[in-house]
């Protein structure tokens, strides 16, 4: 049984339909990438899975339950964490407070210090900057903080919306390496990227999204080798 399953999902903004009958699934333990050009509907998909946008058709199943009507803040409790596009750092909260926010919904306060350790292990930079306010950090550091914060919720499924956006190449490599490490530690990942190269390399499977419709799916390696995909997303 898939951990996450979207079945014929449609999403509208007013009268404009942004997602058309989308069906995708993410198995437990996988990294799945969703590749698409700017405006294809990647962010819309992520926000619908997180519950920030309602569906106009279809259903979303998570961990065996239909969550199509579950409120966004309760989906976090169920184990879905989204690192939003643009990172969504609380700029005037310190690094520590931002991480605390990640654990806001958790009941098991006892294991929280272990999670702080895990996050600081993955991102030593964050440990050095605990007292710094989030808004004064560089883009790369903010992305680390955003991922670390999402991990503080102890998610079963981590949704990442363009984590490489606007980052310098060395940060991009580091972020992708950490995504892999997080996945190996047992977190399932759904990754959205415009920049398809690394996303396809990293993914077990991937989907290509064009103007709100899934047009291709396959293993990461398969799609990376495909001529049409190469031409469209891998710079030829």
């Amino acid at each position, binding site marked *: 049984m898939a951990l996450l399953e979207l079945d014929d999902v449609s999403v509208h903004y007013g009268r404009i339909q942004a997602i058309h009958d989308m069906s995708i699934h993410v198995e437990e333990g996988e990294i799945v990438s969703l590749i698409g050009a700017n405006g294809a509907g990647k962010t819309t998909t992520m926000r619908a899975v*997180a*519950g*920030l946008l309602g569906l106009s058709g279809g259903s979303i199943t998570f961990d065996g339950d239909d969550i199509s009507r579950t*409120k*966004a*803040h*309760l989906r*976090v*409790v169920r184990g879905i*964490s*989204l690192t*939003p596009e643009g990172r*969504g750092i*609380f*700029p*005037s*909260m*310190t690094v520590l*407070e931002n991480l*605390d*926010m*990640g654990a*806001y*919904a*958790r009941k098991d306060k006892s294991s929280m210090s272990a999670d702080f350790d895990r996050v600081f292990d993955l991102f030593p930079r964050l440990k050095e900057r605990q007292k710094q*306010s989030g808004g004064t950090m560089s883009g790369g550091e903010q992305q680390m903080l955003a991922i670390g*914060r999402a991990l503080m*919720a102890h998610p079963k499924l981590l949704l990442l919306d363009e984590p490489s956006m606007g980052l310098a190449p060395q940060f991009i490599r580091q972020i992708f390496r950490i995504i892999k490490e997080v996945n190996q530690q047992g977190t399932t990942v759904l990754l959205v990227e415009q920049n398809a190269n690394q996303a396809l390399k990293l993914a077990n499977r991937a989907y290509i999204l064009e103007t709100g419709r899934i047009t291709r799916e396959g293993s990461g390696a398969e799609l990376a080798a495909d001529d049409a995909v190469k031409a469209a997303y891998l710079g030829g």
Partner: protein
Amino acid sequence: MLHELATASSESWISFNWDSLFSNFLPATRDGITYGGIYALVAVGYTLVYGVLNLINFAHSEVFISGAYAVVFTLTGLGFDGNSPNLGTIPLIGDLLVALLAGAVTSAVVAVLVERIAYRPLRARGAPRLAFLITAIGVSFAIQYLIFLWRGSVAEPSVRMVPVKAIFQIGDTLIFLNQIIIVVAALAMMIAVDQFVRRTRTGRGIRAVAQDPDTATLMGVSTERIIVLTFAIGGLLAGAAGLFYIMQVPSGAIYNGGFVLGIKAFAAAVLGGIGNIRGALLGGFLLGLIGNYGQYLLGDAQWNDVVCFVVLLLVLMVRPEGILGSSLAKVRA
């Protein structure tokens, strides 16, 4: 001739009486601080709701006056009337707490009801900002005239609960018991709310929603619960202010009694920096003082409001975001 006329007419309605200000400086300061505490408590309600919803909740003045009515009814029920009572310390504290509870709970309930009935349906439909604003004004008038229909156009008979008793004096200015209670309690409540927002997990939730509601939701914060909570906290403090207001103005419970005080408190919130709890405190005390000084300087109680709003305007010209500027979203622990 023209010159004379101008001078004569200006003298007839405006003149600066510095002697009066200097000779009344201490009582003016005393009263200014007392009123300032009341303004500050009401201002927090405006500021919290604005910080979280970007909404100026004009009905907050009626949230406040509802608490004042509850205090009057409670005190009347406890047997108080317009005469200064002769109570021991323990019964006085007990009755104060009962009245405080009545005022605070009533105002909090009214605030939450206003949120439920008026604002939540608009939010659910994604209504534009202007719809909220006109609704807020409408709710303010609706509550005022409901009270009018119920209690009539006159004020409730005055009730005094705190014995009129001077505790100490500075120069020959007497400082009265009720004024000390008001200022100390108001300060304590303001500090408590400020620390709550800065230090607790729920306070962090409030700040997160103020800053970025969507991302706060992604952290598992229920924005709806946070919104109700901010209305409730603002209501609790406004109800406490209702008690202090009645202590200072025993015949203050009248249907439109919240209106002017509410505008003043809103001005205090803007003066200090709307969205900022410490700004509400600062703005409250400043407006209390400025109004009272202005009143003695210019000679008439009506000048109190004029001076307050002129000063507000001048400050905003220099600091458009108010004295402390930053919003609730920017509060740091």
